[in-house]
C-alpha cells in the first residue's frame, strides 16, 4: 500500500471565536477518515467546497499534522514524524498546487524553481535534470530562464508538474490543479498528467470538483462531506450505482454534454 489512513482527525484553532484571553476553541475539520490507497492507482477525492479535501491532502503530504489517527506511507507511520526524520521521505511524496501563480516563487527563474528541491536532496546535474523535467511536461528548454509571471496559466501549471516529477516521487497529490485554467488548457494539462502517471508509474491523489474529470482519470473515488468520507468505491461502481444520497446529488449536478442524453 502506498497510503494507509486510519481514523484520521484534524482540528485547527478557530481564530474567529478566540476569546480575548486564553486559547482559541478548536474546530474539527477532519472527523475520522480511513481509506487505503494501493500503489500505482489513481484516487479521486471529491466533495463540496469546505468538505476538507485540501486539508486531507495536505495532511497526507504532512504539511499539516493530524490531531489523532494514523497515516502510513509505504508502511511507515508518518503521522507525527518530525521534519528532520521526514526529510528523506519528502522526496517520495510530492504535491502540485491549485494556484500556480502562488506556488511558484515570483522572483526565481523557472530553472531554479525546479532545480532547488533536487539540490536539497543532494542530487547532481540539477540544471540538466530541471531541463529534462521541463521537456517532459512539454515546455521548451528556454523557459528555464524565465520568471513565472512571464508564462501563461497553463504553462505555469506545467512548471508546477515539472517541479513535482523532477524528484521522481512515488506519490503525487494534485489539489484542484486545473480549476484556475481555461477549458482548453484544462484538457491539455489533464492529458499530460494522465500520460505522466502511466509513464512514471505514479500513485496519484486527485482532488477535484469536476466529477467528469475524476471519472476519466481515477480508479477509485472517495466522496467527502463535512470532514467525513460518505462513500469510497471504485470509479465504475460509484458512477453506475452510487450508494450515498450526497454522491447522487453530486452526480446529478454534472453538466451533460447533451441534455437529452441520460448520464452514462
Amino acid at each position, binding site marked *: 500500500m502506498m497510503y494507509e489512513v486510519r481514523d484520521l482527525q484534524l482540528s485547527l484553532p478557530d481564530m474567529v471565536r478566540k476569546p480575548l484571553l486564553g486559547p482559541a476553541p478548536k474546530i474539527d475539520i477532519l472527523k475520522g477518515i480511513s481509506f487505503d490507497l494501493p500503489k500505482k492507482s489513481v484516487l479521486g477525492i471529491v466533495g463540496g467546497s469546505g468538505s476538507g479535501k485540501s486539508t486531507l491532502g495536505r495532511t497526507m503530504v504532512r504539511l499539516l499534522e493530524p490531531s489523532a489517527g494514523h497515516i502510513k506511507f509505504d508502511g511507515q507511520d508518518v503521522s507525527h514524524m518530525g521534519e528532520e526524520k521526514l526529510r528523506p521521505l*519528502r522526496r517520495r511524496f*510530492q*504535491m502540485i498546487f491549485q494556484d500556480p501563480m*502562488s506556488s511558484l516563487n515570483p522572483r526565481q527563474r523557472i530553472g531554479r524553481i525546479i532545480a*532547488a528541491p533536487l539540490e536539497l*536532496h543532494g542530487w547532481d546535474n540539477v540544471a540538466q535534470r530541471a531541463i529534462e*523535467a521541463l521537456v517532459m511536461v512539454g515546455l*521548451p528548454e528556454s523557459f528555464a530562464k524565465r520568471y513565472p509571471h512571464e508564462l501563461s496559466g497553463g504553462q505555469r501549471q506545467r512548471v508546477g508538474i515539472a517541479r513535482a516529477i523532477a524528484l521522481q516521487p512515488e506519490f503525487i497529490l494534485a489539489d484542484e490543479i486545473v480549476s484556475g485554467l481555461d477549458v482548453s488548457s484544462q484538457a491539455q494539462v489533464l492529458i499530460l498528467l494522465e500520460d505522466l502517471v502511466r*509513464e512514471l508509474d505514479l500513485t496519484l491523489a486527485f482532488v477535484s470538483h469536476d466529477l467528469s474529470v475524476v471519472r476519466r482519470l481515477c480508479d477509485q473515488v472517495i466522496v467527502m462531506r463535512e470532514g467525513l468520507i460518505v462513500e469510497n468505491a471504485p470509479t465504475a461502481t460509484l458512477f453506475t450505482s452510487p450508494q450515498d444520497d450526497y454522491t447522487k446529488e453530486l452526480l446529478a449536478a454534472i453538466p451533460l454534454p447533451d441534455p437529452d442524453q441520460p448520464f452514462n
Partner: protein
Amino acid sequence: MLCSIQSYAMRDTRSEIRPKLGIRLWLCGGWLFCLVLGALFAPWISPQDPLAQDLFAARLPPFWVAGSEPGFWLGTDSLGRDVLSRMLHGARLALIVAFIAGTLTCLIGSTLGIFAGYYQGWADRVISRFIDIWMAFPPVLFAILLIAVIGTGMTSIIIAIIIIDWTRFTRVVRAETMSQSVMDYIASAQVAGRGKFSTMVSEILPNLLPTIVVLLSLEMGIAVIVEAILSFVNLSISTDSPTWGGMIAEGRISIHQAWWVLVFPLIALFLTVLSFSQFGEGLKDRFDPVLR
C-alpha cells in the same frame, strides 16, 4: 528520465525585451555618485581649507557675482571660510551618517520584521507590543533627550536615527513577510523538504528585497535630514567640523548680507534627500524581475 510526450510541446515565442534605462535612476544615481566622489576626495579637491578663517575675505559672493574672488567659487561665509570646501567636507559627514545609520537601521528593523512575520507566535507578539509602546513616544524628542544624555558626536547621531526609525522597517517588513508566508510557494518549499530558516532566507527574503531597498534608500535620505536638523540645533558633531545643517544655521543669521551661505547647502541637502528617496524606487523599477 526520458519522455515520449512531445506532441504538445510548446515553442518559446517571446523575443528578448530590453529593459529601458530609467532617467530617474540616472539623475539620482549621478548626483549621489558625484556626492560620494566629492566626499571621498574632499581633502584633495577642496579649493580651500574648510576651517581657515580670513576676515578680510569675509562674505565674498559666488563666482558669477561682481566682487567675487577666484578660488572661492561659491563665496565665503561671515568668517571668511570657503563655502564650497565646507560643503564638500560636510558631505563626508552627511554620507557617513547616511550609510552607517541607514544600513544599521535597515538591518535591525528588517531582521526583527522578518522574524516576527515569519515565525509569528511569541516572537511576533513580543516585537509587535514593543513597536506599539515605542510608537507611543515622540521619537524625535526621545532622540534629542538621548543626545543630551550620552553627549553629541557621530555615534550619538547614528544611535538616535536608529532609535527613531527602526520601527518603520520592522512594520513594513513584517507585514510583507506575513503576506508572503501564506503563499503556496512556501508550502511547496516545505513539501520539498526545505527547513524553516532556510525557507525564510532563500524563498521569502528575495521577495522582500525590492521593498527593503526602497526603504533603505529612503532611510538614508531621512538620515541626512536628521543629521542636518541635529546640526542645525547644534546637537551634532563638535562645532568645528563643517556640516550642512550647521552651515544652514550660520547662513540663516546673515541671509540678507550673504544668501549664498544658506542657499548652497540647502540645495545640496534638498538634492541629496530627493535623490536618496528616488534612487531606491529607480533601482526597484530597473532590477525587480517582477516589474521589469
